[in-house]
């Protein structure tokens, strides 16, 4: 945990493309869709493939439901992180106990919602725009955070399409989003209840 704690808010540095990208992003109040995740870990031969559904609700939180290979739900709310394995709570962290929870949530939330101006406080952004699509590389401003998270690459258009995480340890995670829906009908009642 100590390593994650070193994050910082620095002066807002904005490379020109970032403003442009920010303008391209739709950022609806509710965004749901399918994700496909591939993790390549050092010491494990086969990539770990998983998929499921996710929802990002502005001001509420993030629901990340893995369906394959086994059901698992990660719920991020402003003040807590809960990991459910079936009905069992596998992990729970709340901001009262662990003040850093808020920061972690902030980063993950911004990442999925494509909120670059928020990410800019923690990362140096470097991006380019080609037609309707863009990509941005994120490098943590604090060495400790860099060590914990590594570097990130986001690509997208009106929405974030892929997130690639390269960790210092050599582990690599690729997440791609598809079937994106926005608006009130995007979220199922079950998902809505889970985020309440």
């Amino acid at each position, binding site marked *: 945990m100590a390593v994650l704690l070193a994050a910082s*808010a620095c002066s807002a540095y904005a490379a020109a493309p970032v403003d442009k990208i920010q303008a391209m992003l739709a950022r609806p109040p509710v965004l749901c869709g399918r994700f496909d995740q591939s993790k390549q870990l050092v010491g494990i031969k086969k990539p770990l493939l998983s998929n499921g559904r996710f929802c990002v609700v502005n001001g509420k939180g993030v629901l990340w439901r893995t369906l394959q290979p*086994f059901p*698992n739900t990660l719920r991020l709310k402003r003040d807590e992180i809960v990991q459910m394995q079936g009905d069992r709570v596998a992990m729970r962290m709340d901001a009262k106990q662990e003040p*850093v929870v808020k920061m972690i949530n902030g980063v993950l939330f911004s990442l999925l919602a494509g909120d670059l101006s928020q990410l800019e406080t923690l990362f140096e952004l470097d991006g380019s725009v080609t037609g309707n699509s863009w990509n941005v590389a994120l490098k943590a401003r*604090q060495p*400790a955070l860099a060590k914990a998270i590594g570097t990130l690459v986001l690509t997208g258009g009106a929405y974030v399409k892929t997130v690639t995480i390269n960790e210092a340890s050599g582990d690599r995670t690729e997440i791609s989003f598809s079937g994106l829906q926005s608006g009130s009908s995007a979220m199922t009642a079950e998902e809505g209840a889970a985020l309440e």
Partner: protein
Amino acid sequence: MWALAVALLLAHNAYLWLGKGVVPDTDIMALLPVQQRDPVLQQAFTHMVDAAQQRVIVLVGADDWVHARTAADAYNAVLAKHSALLQTGMQLSEQSQQDWLAPSQQMRLSLLTPAQQAALRQQPAKYWADTALQQLYSPFSGPKLGAWQDDPFGLFSGWVQARAQETPVRPRDGYLFVEDKGRPYIVLLMTLRQPAFSMATQRAVLPLLEQAGVAARQAVPSVELVSAGVVLHAGAGSAQASREMSTIGIGSLLGIVLLMWLTFRSLRPIVLIMLSIAGGCLAAFSLCWLIFGQVHLLTLVFGASLIGVAQDYGIYFLCSRTAADCKLDSWQLLRRLMPGLLLTLAAAVIGYVGLALTPFPGLRQMALFSVIGLLFAWLTVVFWFPALVSASTLNGSSFAAWFGQTRRHWPLLQWNRATLLAALLFAAFAFSGIARLKVNDDIRSLQTPPKALLADQIKLGKLLDAPTPVQFYLVRGASAEQVLQREEVLKQKLEPLVASHIISGYQAMSNWTPSMQAQQANRSLVTQALLAPDGPLKALAAQLGEDDSWIKQMRERALSGAASANGGQALTPEAFLKTAASEPSRHLWLGQVDSQQGSVYASIVALRGLNNYANLPVLKQAGEQLDGVQWVDKVSEISSVLGHYRQYMGWVLLGAYAAIFLLLFSRYRLAAWRVLAPPAVASIAILALLGVIGQPLQLFHVLALMLILGLGVDYGIFLQEQSMQRDRFAWLTVGLSAASALLSFGLLALSGTPPLHAFGFTMLIGIAVVWMTAPCFSQDSPREEK
């Protein structure tokens, strides 16, 4: 001769005040007995209490992190220029953060939380395999420390999280901070380089903190500053005591001057009385300094009230002089007054000697200060007054004459109905009051810090969830290993108390470095439950599509890492204390301590979230019957010492009554009781009154009863002495003494310091009662009416 002695005193005082610039001691603890029986315990206190005493903590709160940082930087910038006074907290470097957990990380197989131990014993292999898989697949699986393969089951990160829960303080951007309801508070830790109880420190540090606060407010107007530290309380306390000392001193002096002027209408007697008081005070300060090497502020405050007693001798002489025949030479008059003067001095000294016999250094100092002061005031009267006052010097005023007359209106006690009725009424009042009297020796009731300070203290305690420095367990053993093992036994007893929210947690060295025995047990538990051939690794491999060689490799990685960690050494407190991670735990480990039983090892197990004092017995009980574990509660220890001395002083008081009775008996025979009765009646009345108004009896009430005896006997003696023309001038002497005593001690009752208030209140009532009842106990009505 006497002039020479006084000149010497004057010179010594001038040297002390002007030359050395002495400041009185203000540490209330310095007034309490030092317990040196147990050096280990003593050292534990030094470790916990003294360190806490030197600390100043300021929380800089703002609406957001950027503002909090700006304000904290402004605050720190002011302090940075005064590093000789205050050492400001370390800046957390990247390096220290990265190295923070390295030693523990190497030893991860040896480190488990109680919950993990339970899970390892109970949960099936599938549980652990699922846990590992879930962490693998999840995009975010909680804090991650190092490579997945080094902690596939998340045990080490769970342990680190448990350690992090020992404090809500977190590092961020090189600052320490806590968060409360979304507000960040930057924690500034400062250490005083000079003793917190020194007035010089207070005078230098308090304005500096004030200045830093102003700077922070200028930078961020909405900043919230929460400060706490013993020095703030001590500063407030000494400022109050200094204020009161001068108020009481000046008030009683003015009162006396006014009374003297009304009585004698001449400056000379006033100067003379001042002279005797000054002689007494100078001598008392000088000699106390020589004997104790330090004079406590409370002694001076108590000493200021001494003026009320020291003047009695001078007043007695002056009043007698006014009354005496003009033909009588002043030296002859003195000879005639001598028995009375000697008696009053002896009675006062007896009272104070009782105080001096207590093992309370503070009381001893106050008693000695008073005895010396009285003795020198007395000597000044005896040596100088007859030389400086001749029969023609003084003229009684009309006020003196009028006052002397008033004695006629007092009823005398006789065998009649009125007396009996009065006695019955008083007895009824005394019984009903005393029956309701309660006692309270709690040290906490003796301190009333300013409300703002107290509020800050409470808020800070809540935010930081810091352990209490005055209640803890002291654990001893023959070796470091034994101490750690005993801590572990104790911790098992504490776990249920955490679960039932009596405490929120505990800090112990064994949380960081378990005993070898526990480390060994943890290792075998992990090896058995997780690394066994048929264990979760196999299930995991099947899921991941890995083969047996992968299992073997994971297994070896875990075991060889543990074997080679720290060069094959197990984790020890000594090694741990060298790391940066130990910074917040260093106060816990006393290590090797020399005691009478040879050298032992000792540590402290500190408690967090202890906010209900009613739970103290439960905590005490938890440590009972455990080998080498001792529950330490400084607050109740001091309170019980106070209680002990309250009782002790009660007996000393009774003894003093007896001793003074014998002394009086030698002169007045069967009339001796008439001298003692007024203070006795006053004392009983006070006890009853305390009972009626529901104020609990404290040590300081009893101390005041002692002084009431000393003063009351004086009045009795003045009224009883045959040598004095016993009519109006004896009464005038008593009136003048009592009025000025009331002035000085009455002002003490206004004090905001609870001990002084208790003392002053008792004196106020007591002296008034003595004054009003003393004439009633006279043998007969004054012979001369005019």
